[in-house]
């Protein structure tokens, strides 16, 4: 029994590795592009939602902001509050006649907008961890809300939220398996057709699970390396020199009279 299980596994790998490879490739393409596009959506939606207009903003800006905030909230709530599998079938068929998309494109679209909703909240919490004093300082220098967000707040928010952003990628590697509902040739879909033709369900899905596990653990290893690199101080800096007398302009001692 034991021997025959491994025999089956080997047979399947030998015979079907090309179609498994296609599955792996598609799974990686979908989850990676989906995470990146989702991050862009999240930066946009989360960043916009986190801008706090003060009293100096114009009336039209205030109204526009209200509308965008509401739209953002609806988007986030809907996509976080419904299963991705349902989103996939619904969006695929609903938009099929308008965009005539191929399946892979549809899959990337679904996973992107779904991830975007989660990313928006991740970015928002990353923004909240940036101390408001920096925003105030940027504003006091004359930078606009959007300039402050783009140049000061968001870069720090992404760094703060990097572990959570990376986690979304790992989640997407696994959760993209539900996209087989719209017949995308991802790893899960390929496994299902292999199992269907070999009738060796345990062996086939055993291989599938192992591949998913290898993919996610490799991804998390890479993400950890990137995170370590991000946390390293970026520049060397000169010898500590806090003695005021060494300053070019310190011609006399100040402070005491």
């Amino acid at each position, binding site marked *: 029994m034991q021997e025959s299980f491994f025999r089956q596994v080997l047979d399947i790998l030998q015979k079907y590795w090309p179609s498994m490879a296609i599955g792996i490739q598609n799974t990686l393409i979908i989850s990676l592009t989906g995470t990146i596009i989702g991050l862009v959506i999240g930066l946009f939606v989360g960043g916009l939602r986190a801008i706090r207009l*003060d009293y100096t903003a114009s009336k039209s800006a205030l109204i526009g902001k209200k509308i965008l905030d509401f739209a953002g909230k609806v988007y986030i709530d809907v996509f976080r509050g419904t299963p991705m599998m349902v989103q996939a079938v619904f969006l695929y068929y609903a938009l099929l006649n308008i965009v005539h998309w191929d399946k892979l494109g549809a899959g990337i679209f679904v996973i992107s907008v779904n991830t975007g909703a989660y990313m928006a909240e991740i970015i928002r919490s990353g923004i909240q961890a940036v101390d408001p004093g920096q925003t105030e300082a940027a504003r006091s220098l*004359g930078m606009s809300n959007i300039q402050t967000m783009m140049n000061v707040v968001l870069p720090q928010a992404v760094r703060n939220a990097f572990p959570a952003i990376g986690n979304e990628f790992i989640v997407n590697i696994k959760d993209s398996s539900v996209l087989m509902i719209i017949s995308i040739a991802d790893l899960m879909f390929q496994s299902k057709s292999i199992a269907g033709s070999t009738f060796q369900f345990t062996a086939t899905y055993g291989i599938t699970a192992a591949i998913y596990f290898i993919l996610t653990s490799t991804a998390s290893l890479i993400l950890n390396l990137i995170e370590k690199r991000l946390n390293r101080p970026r520049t060397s800096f*000169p010898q500590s020199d806090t003695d005021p007398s060494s300053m070019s302009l310190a011609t006399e001692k100040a402070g005491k009279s």
Partner: protein
Amino acid sequence: MSNPVVEIKWLRKSFGTLEVLKGVDFNVNESEVVCLIGSSGSGKSTLLRCINLLEKPDDGSIHVFGQNILDVKNVDQYRANVGMCFQQFNLFKNMNVLKNCMIAQQKVLHRSAKEAEEKARFYLRKVGMEQFALADSNMISGGQKQRVAIARALCMEPKLMLFDEPTSALDPEMVKEVLVVMKQLAEEGLTMIVVTHEMGFARQVADRVVFMDKGVIEEEGDPKTMFTNPKSERTREFLSHFQED
């Protein structure tokens, strides 16, 4: 000396039911250095923040350079003319020292990177921080951070500088290095309003000292008279805490 840069009339500001400014009249002339002193909660910082429009006054008027700033359309442009330094320095943590001083020049004044870097290095040299231009802004000491924050504000070439307790978060040694810089700016004729607890600095550098208490200006005058012979009983009481200074 009698060119008014800031003219404030009957300024009132409440946060909820707490009335912080209860009708403040306050003027600052060109090249004048005014120190605002007073206990915590007396409204000094709020007054300063109103001048930079970080807070919206409830009532009264503020004219800066002859312009009613409560009416200005382009608040960002106005703020670019008024420099501000904060107690917590508020350097941009995602940028090095040089970039901290360049970003607003490029984004607000639309200076080229080359021009912005020249200006930034010029002012960093002025505050004794040029050798730290490429240092990570998180890796320098508090006093150095505040000096960079001053340089960052100066890069916009403001006609008025506001300092909100610039040395309150620093240890005594670092206080000194920041005050050296501020003193230098005062001597160069920059108009400055400084909220401070450094009585030594106020006495030595200020042209005028304003003592605030419970949302009103209790007393103002030249530092000598103020510190040796205050008129108001409340001022005397407050200053008595600094006798050892």
